[in-house]
């Protein structure tokens, strides 16, 4: 698209005022304009949650799937047409709870898709229950006496499973997030960006101020091809030490690159056609 206006739809944005999803939306639109993502070259998939509403606000081809199942839809879409830029918008509940299995397996397969994880550390759309990202002790309707589980760290999980690009960004820093989205998309293989996204309505721990005070940008000293350094940074979390930026990137070939059939073009570029079975029938004698 040429302008952010072209990316708008007739549907008006209905997130809560101050919601961190606005930053993600803005950064994505900017990236889309910068890279000219359009209805020929791009498709979006989202899960169910506040995050998923984003598809209604973007004039780009999209599929709103089931809660937790955005990634496999994106996997199939990418295999069928690997020329498309495929983005997944997913939530921490969607991606890490309901859809945890798909997340690790897409990472393992190293499919060339970009997962934008709207991490608000809460189940927003179902009115604020504790999510796998909520901190220990977190009080919500589902954990009125405080959460007794350790939060799940999505990036070490992705690294363990085989992701080849992992990054973290804060939605409030739109330029940085935009850069991350562009870099993740440029990467050949599975990329995930954990976007720190305040939910102003339900999460009063991970607020805008919390992130503004506690994030820091990874600098040159961080070697993004060193996996154990990556693990260390990916696990890092707490007061004044939430690193943002690219945490790991490596250059293995993607699943699509390794699939022999796709070397000569996309699957859908060979239109579906009736096949002759003579050879196969001959073997059945």
């Amino acid at each position, binding site marked *: 698209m040429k302008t952010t206006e072209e990316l708008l*739809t*007739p*549907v008006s944005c209905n997130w809560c005022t101050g919601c961190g999803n606005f930053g993600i939306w803005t950064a994505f639109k900017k990236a889309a304009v910068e890279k000219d993502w*359009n*209805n*020929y*070259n791009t*498709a979006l*998939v989202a899960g*169910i949650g506040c995050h998923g*509403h984003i*598809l*209604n606000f973007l*004039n*780009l*081809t*999209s*599929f*709103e*799937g*089931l809660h937790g*199942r955005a990634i*496999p*839809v*994106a*996997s*199939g*879409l*990418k*295999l*069928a*047409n690997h*020329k*498309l830029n495929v983005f997944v918008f997913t939530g921490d509940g969607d991606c890490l709870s309901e859809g945890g*299995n*798909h997340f690790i*397996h897409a990472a393992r397969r190293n499919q060339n898709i970009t997962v934008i994880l709207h991490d608000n550390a809460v189940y927003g759309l179902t009115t604020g229950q504790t999510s796998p990202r909520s901190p220990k002790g977190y009080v919500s309707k589902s954990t009125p006496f405080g959460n007794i589980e350790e939060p799940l760290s999505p990036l070490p999980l992705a690294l363990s499973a085989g992701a080849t690009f992992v990054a973290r960004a804060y939605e409030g820093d739109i330029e940085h997030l935009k850069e991350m989205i562009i870099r993740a998309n440029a990467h050949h293989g599975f990329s995930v960006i954990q976007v720190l996204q305040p939910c102003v309505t339900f999460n009063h721990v991970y607020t805008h101020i919390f992130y503004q005070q506690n994030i820091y940008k990874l600098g040159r000293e961080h070697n993004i091809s060193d996996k154990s350094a990556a693990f260390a940074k990916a696990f890092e979390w707490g007061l004044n030490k939430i690193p943002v930026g690219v945490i790991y990137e490596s250059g293995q070939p993607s699943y699509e690159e390794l*699939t*022999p*059939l*796709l070397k000569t073009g996309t*699957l*859908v570029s*060979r239109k*579906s*056609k*009736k*096949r002759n*079975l003579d050879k*196969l*029938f001959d073997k*059945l*004698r």
Partner: protein
Amino acid sequence: MSSTPFTFSMGGEAGYGIASTGLSFSKLAMRSGYYCYTYLEYPSLIRGGHNVFLTSFSRLPVGGTYRTIDFLVALNHETVDRHLDNIAKGGILMHDGTQKLSLPAGKSVHYIDIPFMGIARKLGAILLRDMVAMGASVAMLGGSFDVLEEIIREEFVKKGEDAIRTNIDAAKAGFVHATKHFSPAIRKILTPIKSDKKMIINGNEATAFGGLAAGLQFAAIYPMTPTSNILHVLAPLQEEYGLVYKQPEDEISAINMAIGASFAGARSMVATSGGGFCLMTEGLGLAGITETPIVIIEGMRGAPATGLPTWTEQGDLQFMLHAHQGEFPRIVLAPGDAEEAFHLTMEAFNLADRYQTPVIVLIDKLICESFQSFKPFEYDKYKIDQGKITYDVIKNYQRYGLSADGISLRAPAGTGNHVMENSDEHDTFGFSSEEIEVRNAQMKKRMTKLLTCAKRESTEPKLYGPAKADLTVVGWGSTKGAVLEALKELPKVNFLHLNWISPFPSEAVAKHLKKAKKLVNIELNYSGQLGNIIAEKTGIRIEDNILKCDGRPFYPEELVSELKKRL
């Protein structure tokens, strides 16, 4: 029974390749000019259980497996324990005397003692035992060793000349031994005869081939008995035929991947059994509301839960009609044998595209894994029809535009259109909406597609046998073969076989049922599910049922006796 096929069977412990021996034997029969039907029984274990195959062959097509065995090869005790009672009067039991199987006296069975083990051991490997038995059996049936040799050669070609040689030697040794010691007992029943060109195929192959013919581009299949073999067929053909097979992490992923691929415009399918289908139920409705074409092959087995993984049943019929919350159009086809599975799978892809909705092809272990010989399938007339689809940029494109037939113009992702597919209720553009008018319009649009389908497609059941009969048997899916075999003995019985379940051909069925003098419903399940559906759809309750759900198929003999009681 005069027209009854000859039934040959061999049993032994799992892990000795009984299944592939069964297929070889069937090919031999077929190349000698006979039609055959080969049924396999094995437990859900890799080794240690009991395996058996039964091949019924005849000059005429054979559609089912007979219980009465004319010639049984027992490679172990269990074969005798389990199958001796099924040997026909005057039938043959071939065994190895050195194994000292307990063979009851007084049975009118001819015992043929062949030292399989000794011969195999002499040739260097106990595993050759089956081959020795095979050679001996072919000899006793008056079959041609040349045909057998040719088949062994083909089967072992990948394993190299040595393997070919040893196996041929083993077969030869058995052949020679039998000819030498038992020539008076030889029955000229496999003597090569002239006949039409035939092929032997099981339902899994037929389904996979149906997909291939129909231009299948993407298949995501997580292994599960009895349909795993579909993936085994497709995976090696990927490159040559230009499709992608993907083994997903689970069945949820499988169906969602297929939906994603279809969103991009690829003809997509999944295959599974009941347990995996449970995990697909949510995705099924996703395809329904997003109007994404997909084909689902569901191979039933003994249920519920893990149940009887390697045995057959028709227990999932009503589940197929009602899986997923709420309502959306779904097409359910239930082929009666491998040939129908081939044709209906091809058709399924056209239907999925035409009505932009999921199509289920419901088969079962009996169809999936039984080998049946047919004349080569005729599919010249088949044409790929992708329905209302565009690859052009359409001004003001609306994925869910309204139309009289309920079908909207589909544009795949990547065509330049803003295509939005949405699991939330949505307006014509695909944007989420909860307005009454929008909801009603979209709900009606989707459900209208089923009416359109019922109008445009020929969903009628087929009546086999005489138009007027004393008794009408009603059934669906895989019982077809056994019933048709039974009908050969029962000239006054006819058979109404359904292979379209949704949209249900209510009128056609009602018409037939009302004409019938007497009705009986036949199903491989506990409660008679087709009977339930017929009652729901036509108001006619067939009171008389022949039901069975012990994992075994109906045998023509048992049907003949059950049906005779009703005449």
